[in-house]
């Protein structure tokens, strides 16, 4: 059997690529090293709690009337997500006693910023307008065309600017910039390094397509994708870790750990390019390592999953998210974030909006702490359990003190994920949380415009490490984007 396409990894990018290929009658096989699909999007069970590892904010899905890209792409395959739209709901603190609560829709948020700092509004309104422009320009580029400079002047003006410089240029006061970008830690990069286009697109999705969450566990979604893929004739094999890829007579030969061999005309890696060329592909490739050597990694982190034996109401956990920063100034903050016991972290309480997140009268709390630098290289085999436990203990205590909420005495289940956990299950480079850093010349826009010129004959990459970056919508989108290009080779525009 010679497959048209062999996909390594059943993450969202691999699955969407598979769905697209079988819908065009391509003989496709997905090889997944774990025994379940999803990659970063999965669940694990401890006692009576089933923890989702991601999808606590789904961007670009939209609503029934205002469809986002993610939803539009799923509709192609008669698929959808069971979602709820959620408002902004976060409590944000920093060590300099700066604190604010974000509530309601984006407009409320903007007016609240104005309340904190008068005179912010004009700049913020201008910024929102620009996000729309950026979004439209990006869609044009995706379709292999070039946005007209007269129609999209701001897109060109800010194309290579950082978020901080742009927002300053729009005359938004510094304190308002900090509030506006209070989720920068989720983007994995500080404002003076974050390309403006990335930030604008992120905010565009939030404003215009809303933030939604799943009403089910993410595994029910990924298994639905698999079923659809299989019903179209796609093959998927689990416990199939690829260990070697080589090419002979224009055919790729793929070996798995269980000594099976697969043949395919094309390879799609829903794995990191770095690991593919470092650990799997045996032939020399011209220049392919240069890009990898040039790249830097996004932060890695410690994630603490707690199952508590009280409801979130009883515990006084009113907010969906809690952020604590050393300082709201991301550039200063990031410098403090390479100490094992630093005090910048975020917390999510899924039960606030999803009553099915855990059994009745229980709550799930997830605490996440990111590290810029190599602090977590302090982990080794012998201190692994104690060190990760100490970091988690410190994190829980900090959260209790900063937000004045007791959680420790209600812990029924606890699991601590480290970069090793993430590396093992998802294969994210160096166990990092957002893959490659979007620094400088490696922002999404740079990846997108360089897509064609960086193509390798017969080998493509999808998923969070590829063209659009991390997050579920981007991963899913990447699989479709890449396979559309492959399917339309020679032609220009799709659809």
């Amino acid at each position: 059997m010679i497959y048209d396409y062999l996909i390594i990894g059943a993450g969202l990018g691999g699955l969407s690529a598979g769905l697209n290929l079988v819908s065009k009658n391509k003989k496709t096989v997905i090889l997944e090293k774990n025994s379940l699909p999803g990659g970063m999007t999965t669940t694990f069970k401890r006692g009576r709690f089933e923890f989702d590892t991601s999808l606590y904010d789904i961007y670009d899905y939209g609503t029934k009337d205002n469809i986002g890209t993610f939803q539009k792409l799923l509709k192609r395959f008669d698929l959808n997500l069971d979602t709820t739209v959620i408002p902004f709901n976060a409590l944000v603190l920093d060590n300099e006693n700066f604190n604010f609560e974000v509530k309601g829709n984006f407009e409320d948020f903007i007016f609240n910023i104005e309340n904190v700092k008068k005179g912010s509004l004009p700049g913020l309104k201008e910024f929102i307008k620009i996000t729309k422009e950026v979004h439209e320009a990006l869609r044009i580029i995706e379709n292999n065309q070039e946005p007209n400079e007269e129609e999209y002047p701001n897109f060109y003006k800010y194309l290579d600017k950082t978020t901080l410089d742009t927002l300053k240029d729009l005359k938004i006061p510094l304190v308002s910039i900090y509030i506006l970008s209070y989720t920068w830690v989720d983007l994995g990069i500080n404002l003076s390094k974050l390309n403006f286009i990335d930030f604008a697109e992120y905010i565009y999705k939030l404003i215009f397509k809303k933030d939604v969450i799943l009403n089910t566990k993410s595994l029910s979604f990924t298994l639905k994708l698999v079923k659809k893929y299989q019903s179209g004739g796609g093959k998927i094999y689990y416990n199939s870790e690829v260990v070697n890829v080589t090419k002979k007579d224009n055919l790729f030969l793929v070996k798995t750990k269980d000594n099976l061999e697969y043949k395919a005309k094309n390879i799609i890696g829903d794995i990191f390019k770095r690991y593919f060329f470092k650990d799997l592909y045996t032939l020399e490739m011209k220049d392919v390592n240069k890009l990898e050597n040039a790249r830097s990694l996004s932060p890695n982190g410690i994630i603490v999953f707690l199952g508590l034996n009280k409801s979130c109401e009883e515990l006084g956990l009113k907010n969906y998210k809690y952020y604590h920063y050393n300082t709201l100034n991301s550039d200063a903050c990031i410098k403090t974030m390479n100490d094992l016991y630093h005090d910048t972290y975020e917390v999510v309480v899924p039960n606030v909006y999803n009553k099915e997140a855990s059994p009745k009268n229980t709550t799930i709390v997830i605490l996440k702490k990111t590290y810029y630098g190599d602090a977590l290289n302090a982990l080794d085999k012998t201190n692994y359990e104690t060190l990760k436990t100490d970091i988690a203990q410190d994190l829980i205590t900090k959260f209790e003190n900063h937000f004045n909420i007791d959680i420790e005495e209600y812990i029924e289940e606890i699991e601590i994920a480290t970069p090793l956990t993430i590396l093992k299950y998802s294969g994210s480079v160096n166990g990092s949380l957002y893959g490659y850093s979007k620094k400088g010349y490696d922002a999404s826009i740079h990846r997108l415009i360089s897509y064609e010129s960086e193509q390798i004959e017969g080998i493509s990459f999808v998923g969070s490490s590829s063209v659009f970056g991390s997050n579920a919508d981007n991963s899913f989108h990447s699989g479709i984007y890449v396979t559309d290009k492959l399917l339309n080779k020679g032609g220009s525009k799709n659809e």
Partner: protein
Amino acid sequence: MNKIEALKNERQNIIKEYSNKKIPDTYLDKLSKSINNIQYVKIKEIIEETKDTKSFILTPDEEKSTYKLEPFKAGQYISLKMFIDDAYVTRAYSLSSSPKKSLNEYRITIKRVENGLVSNIMLDEVKVGDGLTISKPIGGFGYNKIRDEKNVIAIAGGSGITPFMSMAYAIYDGIDDYNLTIIYSVRTEADIIFKKEIETLNKKCKKVNILVTLTREEKEGYLTGHITKSMIEPYIKEFNTIFMCGPKEIYKTMNEILAEFNIPKKSVHFENFSIEYTPNMIETYDLKVILKNDFIITKCKSDETLLVSMEKAGIKAPSMCRVGTCGYCRSILLDGKIKMVGSSLKKAEAENDYFHPCVAYPESDIVIRLDI
């Protein structure tokens, strides 16, 4: 040149300057790769604990390139993997040694099971110097500094004492710090596993207190009878964490006792020790196992789990805990009716016909998909 082209060129020019050498592994890449999921060990020593129980001291088998063993947390187990005739079988055994020695030495303790395939071979045939294949240590049972209270009461029945010995040593060796009272129930004095070690630990470690109760005889120095409320009462403090490991009937009695002390469920942890199930009738059915590029047709029996039937057929079905907890054996039921005993399936797994062969008994002819 327009701005987009300029940006593209800028990226290309930066990348061009870098070396085309293969990227070396990062520290975390190396650490991740250094973890051995499969370990090869040699039996260094066999200790006869009681007439039907032996301990095995396992050390790295350097001839098979295992130089150091993987560290473990007190309470974890390993999965022993064996070929017996044509069958590939696994068994889960708690580690009973101190985590302090883990890099160089593990101890497992095995009690003879009547007609047990593995235990009888281990007790009768295996000798010092023999090699074994085991998994890395796994499992979430054991003390957790963040979750658990400082006052811990452990209830052990029979060979259920094994993880608690490791927990006691972790305290003795300064790895963990809490007060541990173990109440260990056995039939007679002759059935006590680790008798000498228990005496030594009681003498040498202030934070560990091991009490033995004999259910079938009265003897000085021991408690008498099954575990009761009054036996536990003296050790209950304001906040307690309870661990249990042993046959199912102990869990039942203990849950009733613990309810009287108002101990919340979150503070009670038990190791799934065994599965107990008896079908109404013993029937034999057809079993078809679809593998990645092959299928196997064999038989299964209503009083045997599907995992056991597959193992007997020589199928290398994955398994670890064998009690429905770890999820390692998950497979898809394509056709047929099964009875599952105490599986921890996720909701979406159940809705998509996933099941755990290690705790599934057939009630009809069966077709399953096993991705191995």
